């Protein structure tokens, strides 16, 4: 495999500052995104970065190989059709070499046989393009949960610690379970503390666009999340006429 300069393969997360409200703190999960379309790669990277993750991008399999030599990743997002080969064969080679980094394949091939094929190659899961970003997150969570979790998944805010994989919030030694939408709502708010999110914005993130939701559905979830956070210095504030924000940490 030809050695490609690592710099061309990776786009450091810190160099990307156009996303103003990005989480100031540390990176939660490190992703390797192997995708040959620069446009798609950029948008997926932006979305993951917005949620506070670190993303390295490789446009080819040889770049991906270089990245894997240089760093450790919590999860690889792998396209199948790449300019220098088939992602499935790359994956098989990785598994044979004993690399067990979780892999989610992003496939444009939706046929059942292709999906079976992908799992047989050693992928942990697959997602069909074009995908709902919330679904990608859900699959990432599910894969990491199955794999026993990534190293740096606990987030702290004020006096609470939050583990998105087990969907638990711990306040003063007391562990509280979050249901799926409470978890996602909390993740959204936690990614940008003190930023005001409108009801619409939250709705768009919590519900699929394929379903229609009433406006006050969001109030229900905010109410539930507030109960789960009771007793913490962190709280969800209603900003009249504008929306909600997480504050107090």
């Amino acid at each position: 495999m030809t050695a490609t300069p690592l710099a061309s393969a990776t786009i450091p997360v810190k160099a990307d500052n156009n996303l103003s409200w990005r989480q100031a703190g540390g990176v939660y999960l490190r992703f390797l995104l192997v995708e040959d379309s620069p446009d798609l790669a950029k948008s997926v990277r932006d979305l993951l970065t917005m949620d506070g993750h670190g993303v390295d991008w490789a446009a080819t399999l040889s770049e991906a190989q270089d990245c894997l030599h240089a760093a450790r990743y919590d999860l690889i997002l792998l396209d199948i059709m790449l300019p220098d080969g088939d992602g499935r064969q790359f994956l098989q080679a990785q598994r044979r070499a004993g690399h067990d980094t979780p892999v989610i394949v992003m496939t444009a091939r939706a046929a059942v046989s292709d999906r079976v094929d992908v799992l047989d190659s050693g992928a942990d899961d697959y997602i069909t393009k074009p995908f709902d970003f919330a679904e990608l997150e859900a699959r990432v969570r599910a894969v990491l949960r199955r794999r026993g979790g990534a190293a740096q998944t606990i987030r702290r805010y004020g006096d609470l610690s939050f583990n998105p994989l087990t969907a638990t919030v711990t306040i003063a030694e007391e562990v509280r379970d979050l249901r799926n939408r409470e978890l996602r709502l909390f993740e959204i708010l936690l990614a940008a503390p003190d930023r005001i999110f409108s009801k619409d914005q939250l709705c768009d993130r919590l519900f699929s666009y394929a379903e229609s939701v009433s406006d006050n559905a969001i109030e229900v979830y905010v109410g539930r999340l507030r109960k789960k956070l009771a007793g913490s210095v962190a709280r969800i504030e209603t900003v009249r006429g504008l929306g909600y924000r997480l504050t107090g940490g």
Partner: protein
Amino acid sequence: MKVFLPNGSLRAKLVLQLLVVAAVLAVLLYFTVRTTADRAAEATQDAILGAATTSIAEQLRATEDGVDVDLAYATFSMLGAIGQDRLFYRIDIEGQTVTGYEDLPLPDSPPAGLAATFYTSPYLDANLRIAAVSRSMTFDKGPVPVLVMIGQTRQGQAAIADSLANRAALVGLGFFLLAVPLSLLSAGSVFNPINRLAEAVGRRGPRDLRPVRHPAPRELAPLIGALNGFVARLRGALSQTETFIAEAAHHIRTPLSTVRAQAEIALRQSDDEATRVRLRSMIRGVETSARSASQLLDHAMVLYRSDQLERVPVDLSQVVRNVARAFEPTAELKEVTLVVTGDDGAMMTQGDPLLIEAALRNLLDNAIKYSAPETEVRMDVTRADGTVRVSVLDQGRGLSGASLAELSQRFTRGGNVGDVVGSGLGLTIVAEVATALGGQFDLRERTGLQSGGGTCASFILPAL
């Protein structure tokens, strides 16, 4: 008659041709035997007639007052050997009939000496075979030509020839009758290799595009060669099509993903309500087209694979668990609890695992799609009466009275689902898979629930 059409049965044609040849041979045999018999009988008669005539001619004696003819008994008894035939004779001296029947027909050319001339001629009511010899006798005046003729009717000869010919006819008929089963047998054995070849090709699975290597007679080699050439071209075309579909999907879905992801980013960043509405409808559009494309492909796959059905043992409960696992995150997103219940142990059925998975996927996708948050979708696997059954039970909006027949039509959707993205192909796929595998698909409204409503979709296959 059908067999004469160019696209009629080759076997019938071959049998017919063999029979025609046999018939011609039989007729030929008859005529050959008949002619030979005629000739043999004639030759026998000629030999006796000639001998008798010559003997009479030799025993003519010239006397002072004429000719002394000795019609010896021995001579005529020799002639009597052939059946009940009548005899006629005539002796001419110097062209004057001296004894016998004076109107007995003369030969066309006078015979040369004692070697007999034979000819056939009608006389009275019958055909006569006549032998004529001539000699010269010396009288006072000098040598005088004497002509001796003996004619005999031909009934005996005809009788012998007829009986021989009748036997020949019997032999010919027997030969023809024997030829009928023989030609049927031989036509069968000629076409057996073709049938075996056809069977071998027909037994092949949908993805078996290897060249045909079945042993076959040399004459079939061009056909097999052509078939293999065709298979090779088909394989090329198929792999091209598959590559093309995969690439087309890649090239369409990748930009669609970009559109969708960019729209999601824009939606997160935009505070303008009008823009947000547009972005949302954009995302819905992308979702609809992607879903339609997937289901059209699934549908095409189901049609293709049911045509050339692969039958292997499949553990239905294993497929259910796999499908449920694949949908876990989707259900989680909607806060729908996904449960798998049912009888223990493997639920073996027979069929194409990919088809079964496609059907279960579509059922589960539907159930989750139409479920309200915080409800349950249950996949129940049971066996009963030689069948295995997967029931997908949801607590969703039900069918609002639409029937299974309506909903399993292509591109038809229920009346109560306008707000949910869908293509109208999902249940069509499920119904088609059930039919292809000899099973059943049943869809009904759930009743008697406290939550009041929901759908129960049952996918039933014969147990192995």
